[in-house]
Structure formats: C-alpha cells, structure tokens
C-alpha cells in the first residue's frame, strides 16, 4: 500500500516562523508537502484556486495551519470564510499563533476551529508541537472527502 502524503497549507506571514516550522516538519519528512501562503488574502486565493494559485492541482489541504495576525485578511476572517463555504467547511483548521489572548481562542472555537495551539517560545517545545501537529493531521488523521491525499488514493 502506498501512503500518500497529504498536503499541509501553512498560512504564516513571518518568514522566520516559516523557516522554523519547516525545519521542524523536515524532521518527520513532512516538509515536502507544505504550501506556504504569506497573508490571509493569499491563503484564500489558494483555497479558492484564484490569483497565482489558479489552475493548481485540485483538492483541499489535509489541514490548514493558520496564523492569526496576518496582513490584509487576518486568520479569524480566513477561518470564518472557510467555515461558511460548502466546499471548504469540512477542512481541518488548526490555529498556530503567538497569542494566548482569551478573545482569540474563544473566537476561534466559536468559528469552529479544530485545534488552537500557542507557539511555545522554547524551541524544543516549539519543534515538538509542530512535529506532532504535522504527524497527526498529515499522517494519522483521515482527512474529510475532497482532500488532496484522499483524491490521490482514490485514483
């Protein structure tokens, strides 16, 4: 049986965070299937196959790792749009943020996030958190119908 890697969409505006997250994911050989978007608008463009992502291979990511504070459209707004869209609403979304503020996590859950993870300052904790997230959502979890990994397997 061939296990296909499922695609992770990483919405993160800070290139340093992107590098650190990719480093952590590389430990589990998960980095190859990560698509990075650097603001909320780009994230939505990817999800809706618009703009520079027009004509990308179809299917939804197995998980969206979503930063909250991003330029143009913030993470909560991205989350809201995902949950309101019939094609996207089942896509797992994990908020990965610096914020421990109550209003952020309460609002995220209210909008239907699947998990809320605060990026730890300690690097080892950070790497472990990202690795576990990657492993869980891209390997262990069965994504909903319409996700990239499933589609490949179905064919």
């Amino acid at each position, binding site marked *: 049986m061939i296990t296909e890697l499922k695609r992770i969409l990483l919405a993160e505006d*800070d290139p*340093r*965070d992107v590098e*650190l997250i990719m*480093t952590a994911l590389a430990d589990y050989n998960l980095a190859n299937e990560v698509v990075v978007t650097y603001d909320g608008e780009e994230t939505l463009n990817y999800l809706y196959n618009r703009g520079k992502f027009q004509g990308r291979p179809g299917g939804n990511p197995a998980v969206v790792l979503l930063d*909250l*504070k991003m330029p143009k459209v913030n993470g909560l707004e991205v989350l809201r749009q995902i949950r309101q869209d019939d094609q996207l609403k089942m896509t797992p979304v994990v908020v990965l*943020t*610096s*914020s*421990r*503020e*109550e*209003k952020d996590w309460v609002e995220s859950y209210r909008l239907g996030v699947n998990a809320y993870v605060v*990026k*730890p*300052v*300690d*690097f*080892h904790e*950070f790497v472990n958190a990202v690795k576990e997230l990657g492993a869980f959502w891209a390997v262990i979890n069965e994504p909903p119908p319409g996700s990239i990994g499933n589609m490949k397997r179905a064919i």
Partner: protein
Amino acid sequence: MEAQPAGGPEGSGDIGGRSLADRPLIVPLTITLLVMIIGMSLYQIAKYLLLPGLSLIKSNIITVFFSSTVATTAAYFILRRRQWLLQQILDELAARKKAEEKIKNLNKDLEYHITQLEAANSELESFSYSVSHDLRAPLRHIVGYADLLQKNSSSVLDETSCRYLQTIAGSAKRMGDLIDDLLTFSRIGRMEMQKTTFNVEQLVKEVLHDLQNETAGREIEWKIAPLPDVYGDRSLMRLALLNLISNAIKFSAPRSHAMIEIGLLQGKENEPAVFIRDNGVGFDMKYAHKLFGVFQRLHSAGEFEGTGIGLANVQRVIHRHGGRTWAEGAVGGGATFYFSIPNIRRMEDK
C-alpha cells in the same frame, strides 16, 4: 449635598407647596381693617373708663391716629414677613437651580471620566493584545535560531561559544516568561469578576491537589484549620491561594521538616483574615513593603526560581475584592502572609 437651604427662624413650613406667592393682598388689608376696628372699640371703652372729660372730636382724632398707627405697623410687619418668605422661596429656588447645575456638571465629569476609563481600558487591552502577538514572536526566533546554530555548528564551536548560545536562548526564554507573567497580571486587573459564595477550605484542598507535583518527595507537615465561606470570584481567589501556597512550599524547601499552616485570624479588633504560615527561609521585615510589587524579589534567581509576579497577582486579586494583604516574617524564621476581604465570615457566624 446642600441643595436644601435651612428653614427660616419662623419656620418655612407654612410656605407649603402652593405658598404665599398665590395669596392675595386682601389678607394684610383685612387684618389692617380688623386691627383698626378693634383699636377704635378698645379706645372708646378705655376713654369712658379713664378719661371721661375728653371732647368727641379730640377723642376721635386720637382714635384714628392710634388705630392707624397700630394698623400700619401691623401691615408693615405682615408685608415684611411676606417679603421675607418670598425671598426665602426665591433663595431656595436659586439654590436648587445651582445644585441642579452642580449635579449636571458632576454627571458630565463622571461621564467624561467613564469615557476616559473605557478608552484607557481598551488601549490597555489592545496594548496587551499586541504584546501577546508581536513581542513573543522575535523571542521565539532568537531561541529557535540560537538552537539551530548550536545544532549546526556544535562540531566547530568551543565550549564557551556553546555556553554563549545557551545564554542567548535562555535569556530570550526568560523574557518570554516575563512577558507571559505581565500579561497574566494585566488580565487579572481587567477580567470581569464573577462572584459567588464558596468555601475557602474546599478551595485550599483543590489547590493542594494541584500542587502534588511540587510537594512530591518533600516532608511537609500541613495544618489546615476550618476556613470560612467568602463571597468573591472563585477562579481569582484560587489563583491567589495557589500563589501563596506554592510560595510556602518553595521557600520552605531548605527545611528537612517543613511546616505549613493555613488558618483564620480572627482578633476582636481586626477583620478576619486568612493566613498562610511556613517555617521557611522568611524575609527581612525591612523589605516587607517590596514583597507585593511586580517582579520584586527578595531572593536571587540562583536561590529560588520565579519571576516575582506571584505576590503582585495575589495583591491584585485581593484588592479587586476590596481587601488587603500583608506579611510578617524574619530572616530564617519563616513567613506569614495574610489576606482579608470584605464579607469573609467569622467561623462562629457560620
């Protein structure tokens, strides 16, 4: 408030609601006339009794003169009193108007201050929001990249350089802790209180359960007295007790036989106060005023861990309940921390 002026010497009770302003002038005139008639009659009687020889014209002139003098004087006093009462009413009205104006101004002031307070609060909120989001990110990067650097170049770096990198990461990590602590401290000040009545002893037991990891392997003799019910925010009070009790555990660590006592102080003059006493390292009373300050520590980081936010949190929680905190201690002689809040019940009241 001095909105109500004091009544006049003759009492302003007769001013009433409808008051003199509506009373017609006929009253003083009638009184004048009555006084004239009575005066005349009195004079006629007196004349016959005392001065039988006086002529009719003379006696009539004296009668008219006498009674008109009495009547005019009476009318004068009646009018004056009327004037005085009217003045009282006008004064009272003016005073009332002034008071109303004052209240209006005070209300305006109050509204202004509320707006200011709301603005300050929302500024504080967005400030801590931005601290939470933006300040922690660069720290995470410092720690992350220092760690990556160490991993990638451990073969070429000497021991000192490795230690430098560890220090960089360690310091950034500590700053992250400090920021988290400050955010918690600020949150304690801002969060809405949800007050209920709960039992302190029950809460202490829950906190002790939470602290099991910290007490593992330690020999601690606990003395927990019956504790009362209080009316307050349970989660905030839990945080205060957690800080106080974990301090007692921490600062009694050097003792092979630690003793921690939690009880209720109820002197006759003092308000009842909950206390937490340990036989730990204590502190110098000279620095007691510093204990509850933000990031104030009386021990070096090498001796005891911590950022120094715990007691500041405790004080903020107790202040928000309208209470106070204080402490007693001696170097090497243990420490006792007290807090009292309104509505704490004496045990016998239960």
